[in-house]
């Protein structure tokens, strides 16, 4: 089996898995005779499972469609799963701490660290400009939304200001 087919197979398994999970959840819905709130979810679950099976069948049959253009683009350049994981970790940390620590501090920290993580390999990491951009962006967005657009972003630790 080719790599492309293996990928299509994994996608099929994920599609079927999503369909089965949705079906299991739909079973728990209260229902009655005729069309009710559970009718559409059951229909959708059946369709999701059907498309999952069709995908698996086409992957097994070796008739895997050419991957989409975006996938091609991704293949053309070096893929770095570590950078994706680091980015996801940073975003997760940012969202978790946004409430308790507050928008201004967390945004500054997130931006600074994310700039470093995403800096292209052929460029030098410039700590001072990064920190400056992060701090200014965070303060400008916080104050702009607070003063001009009446949106109170979480202040967190800076609540006393």
């Amino acid at each position, binding site marked *: 089996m080719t790599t492309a087919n293996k990928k299509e197979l994994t996608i099929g398994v994920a599609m079927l898995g999503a369909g089965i999970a949705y079906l299991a959840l739909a079973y728990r819905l209260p229902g009655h005779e005729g069309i009710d709130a559970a009718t559409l979810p059951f229909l959708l679950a059946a369709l999701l499972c059907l498309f999952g099976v069709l995908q698996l069948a086409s992957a097994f049959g070796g008739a895997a469609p050419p991957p989409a253009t975006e*996938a091609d683009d991704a293949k053309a350049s070096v893929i770095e799963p570590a950078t994706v994981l680091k980015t996801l970790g940073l975003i997760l940390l940012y969202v978790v701490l946004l409430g308790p620590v507050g928008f201004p501090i967390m*945004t500054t920290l997130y931006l600074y660290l994310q700039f470093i993580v995403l800096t292209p390999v052929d460029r030098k990491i410039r700590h001072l400009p990064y920190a400056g951009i992060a701090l200014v962006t965070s303060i400008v967005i916080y104050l702009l939304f607070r003063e001009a657009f009446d949106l109170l972003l979480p202040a967190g630790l800076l609540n006393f200001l």
Partner: protein
Amino acid sequence: MLELLQQGFGAVFSLNILILMFLGVAVGIVFGAVPGLSATMAVALCLPLTFTMGPQAGLSLLVALFIGATSGGLISAILLKIPGTPSSIATVFDGGPLMEQGLGVKALGVGIVFSFLGTIFSIIALMFIAPQLAKVALSFGPHEYFAIAVFSLTLIATLSAGSMVKGLFAGTLGIAVSTVGIAPVEAVRRFTFGLSELNGGFSMLTVMIGMFAVAEVIKLAETGRHAARSKAGSVSMKHIKGFGFSLREFRQELPNASRSGLIGLAVGILPGIGAGTSNLLSYIVAKKRAKQPETYGKGNIGGVVASETANNAGIGGAMMPLMTLGIPGDTTTAILLGGFLIHGIQPGPLLFVSQGPLVYTIFAALLVASVMMLFMEFYGLRLFIKLLDVPKHILLPIILVLCVVGAFGLSSRLFDVWSILLFGLLGYGFVKAGMPVAPFIIGFILGPMAETNLRRGLMLSDGNFAAFVSNPIAATFLGLALAFVLWQLYSAVRPRSGAIAQALRT
């Protein structure tokens, strides 16, 4: 109509709205020009700014962004040979070679002028057709709305560029996600897992911000550190008269432009399908109808004209179902739908009755923004070219922060921020699996519309399904939907790759 339009222009010509629109068009052009950023993202990110504005100012800003971003894609398509947005893919085919031949300014001038003409043509069509369509739609009940929603959902199949199964799965998954929350009619909680925040379901805007913007940041993380930096070619504006091309060339391209404008408008009206498809379609038609088709792809301005007229003509087209039926024509108008709702305005046929002046303010804003786009994009070209060089590793994290602000601003709760993260991951998964996002969005928006109107229709007809087929309009749309599905199945069985799919591959 003229009186209402006069009122509309009166509202738009206030200083603050003009400044907002000026900024909107400029920011839109930048979003359109920078590959990876899109019109959808521009409107989604600027939506929180409009929360405290009145509907006139807020919606004027949003349509200005829409117009700027749809047109801005041509800058990178010609200078970098990378389409800034999917709506400019076909612009690269001839815009790139023209740039290589040293005719970059001409290509840009042609692109910008015909973008403008495409937009104006579609807005005029919108102004004349939409009020008539709204009058007809006023008599629509649940049966008709159900049939229209089902018809629109079947169009999802055409959005599936790579694999139809994946496209259909994405659309079905979109409807499945929309079932979260309180069910219509009998108010049963579905898939809320005891979370009160989920009672209202996922907000449309969190889904869109997550799928389009957050997913883009994660995508950059994957390849961005090794991506080759593309340097925008420089163009000299010295000795340039007018827009860089002659009146004769302009006249020669008028038939091509008219045809492409009609294609763009017609494709734009169809729900879910927008400029991303129409620019390729009109390019293919223009090439077929050209006297020297072999010159296409080697630097024929006709290619740029076809693509740019069609993609901008989609603006008025996509606004038509949005304003008259509340059904977005593409993903950007889906966000605009969110913008309307945030300002307490329900798009649909009643909009023309209850909010007549606002409707014409939007028409006026569209016209004014088009004129602004024409001059700003051409004469501010050097500035926009400089902005293409802004490093992505600085830009995209800032965009993520703006996504967080936008999500939080919807109802000041962190739950929405978690939602955009969830949909960002889903969007990234879609990219990895080669699954198209547009069917998911269309399913998410039209699913509840279909279900609610099915339940209401059945209540009206005492559970009798025959009422859906005995109603002439509903029966027509359901018949069209059935015919379309059968045709799609026939095309899927017959081994032949479509012209658009072929163009996408090349």
